[in-house]
């Protein structure tokens, strides 16, 4: 059966994935919107920076995050000054790492679906008396609905699945930074294959069910009539 460490790994993972996804959507939405609308010449630079985690080895990302957030870094000094401290090897550190690591998986689908929103739809909304913010939430967001669903699922799943970054910056402290993917690795290392099976199989089934729901939900959504009351 599941050990206490396994259960805490599951709970830390879910907590981490939920929190990271929420932060990712909050940061990713304005970022993706800006990228989809701007005619800024150097926007490719921003797109490249956001896409970096896609091709960078997670250990490289983890290493630099450790350098940036670790106890000897200038950032930790600043945080200390304000009564905090280094966030390396803490849950907060994990969240920061996850957000950076999963950013492209949230920004790219959002940016894609935002760029299919025709500027005319927004202009129509303006002529009907909707302000900037108003037309973003009542026209752009509903029209980019499928992008939000994809972004949420990819952001969540990718955070659950990360390994290199969390190992580097989290340090696998049980109950604090010990997550599922590392727990599986530990079981395999200890030749404890049945425990590894339990966790790995559970993740497999959970991911599959999640995707089934998304596809059902998404299709249902496009057929369903929505009203603006």
């Amino acid at each position, binding site marked *: 059966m599941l050990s206490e460490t396994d259960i805490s790994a599951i709970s830390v993972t879910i907590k981490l994935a939920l929190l990271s996804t929420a932060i990712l959507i909050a940061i990713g939405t304005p970022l993706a919107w800006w990228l989809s609308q701007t005619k800024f010449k150097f926007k490719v630079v921003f797109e490249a920076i956001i896409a970096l985690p896609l091709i960078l080895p997670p250990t490289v990302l983890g290493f630099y995050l450790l350098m940036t957030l670790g106890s000897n870094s200038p950032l930790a000094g600043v945080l200390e000054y304000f009564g905090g401290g280094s966030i390396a090897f803490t849950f907060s550190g994990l969240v920061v790492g996850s957000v950076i690591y999963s950013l492209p998986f949230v920004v790219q689908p959002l940016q894609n679906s935002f760029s299919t929103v025709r500027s005319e739809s927004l202009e129509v*909304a*303006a*002529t009907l008396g909707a*302000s900037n913010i108003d037309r973003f939430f009542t026209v752009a967001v509903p029209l980019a609905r499928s992008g939000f669903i994809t972004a949420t699922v990819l952001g969540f799943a990718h955070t659950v699945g990360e390994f290199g970054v969390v190992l580097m910056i989290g340090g696998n402290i049980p109950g604090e930074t010990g997550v599922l993917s590392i727990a599986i690795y530990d079981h395999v290392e200890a030749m404890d294959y049945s425990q590894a099976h339990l966790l790995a199989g559970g993740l497999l089934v959970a991911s599959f069910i999640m995707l089934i729901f998304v596809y059902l939900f998404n299709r249902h959504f496009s057929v369903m009539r*929505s*009203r*603006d009351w």
Partner: protein
Amino acid sequence: MIECQLKIKLEGFTLDAKFTTPDKGITVIFGPSGSGKTTLLRAIAGLEKSDSGFLKVGDSIWQTDDNFVPTHKRQIGYVFQDAGLFDHLDVSGNLNYVTKRKTGLKKVFIDSIYTLLDIESLLNRRIGQLSGGEKQRVAIARALLTNPKILLLDEPLSALDLKRKNEILPYLDSLHNQLEIPILYVTHSQDETSRLADHIMLIEDGKIIGNGPINEMLTSFDMPLSHSGDAISIFEARVISRDTDFNLMHLEFNGGQFIVPDNALPIDSLVRIRVAARDVSITKKKQADTSILNIFPAVVEEIVPEGNAQVIVQLTLNGVVLLACLTRKSSASLKLYKGSSVFVQVKSVAILN
């Protein structure tokens, strides 16, 4: 009144529009593709920004050199070429988009717009289930719900086939008759212009080259529309009586009475008449033995050559201006000159409503 003086530089194109138009009736903005018609409409809506300029509609000033009122704060109704309905909402959702944001709209007002455009039966439909004509009706209703100070229509019929066009034209006629606000209507269709326009604004290469009442714009030799074999005149007449023996009706206008086939319009209704210059001939004496019913005394105002063999003659019939297209030879043998008293014979007229 609309007072407009806007200059907008776009890539490879400059709109330099200066005009005033009356605050009632349909002003058709007429010009070839790429002449800046849509840009002008967008500028009035605030969708296209200019550095400086002046725009006043009724008593609202929307733009001065140092103030630019954003689109969502301008009281405009804008109907886009392809209707621009929100696909993620149904018909009532599209209409409620306005009523939710505009407080204090009276139910009577909303109902009157629904009636005007016959919306009631469409309310629960999805946008994908509407025909092109129905989409435009919903779009016009949605634009009118904003209680606009001006209605801007950007080629609302161009995406529709003939059948759908004829379906929606009566609704546009009723807008014309029932709305108290100015309507700017962009089109390059002569048919729509002659049917709907009270005023015409001619635009070419981003400049307004003429602006005035429809018949003045059609018949003035200063304007390009009169310099063509296809020149026409348009004016209003009233049905005054019918001749049931021959199935004809009599239409009265300032220059006399037209006799035309009866098309069942009630007595006293106003009709819009179009006379093509090619269908008008001129005689010095009133012909007695002729099949032509519509003969009126007229005075020659001006004659200009049209090509090598033809001339266009501008005539007035007790104040109503009419054009005739003749051969240069006929004009010479009749010795026509400014001030000649003649008779015009009108072979056929078209009734536009």
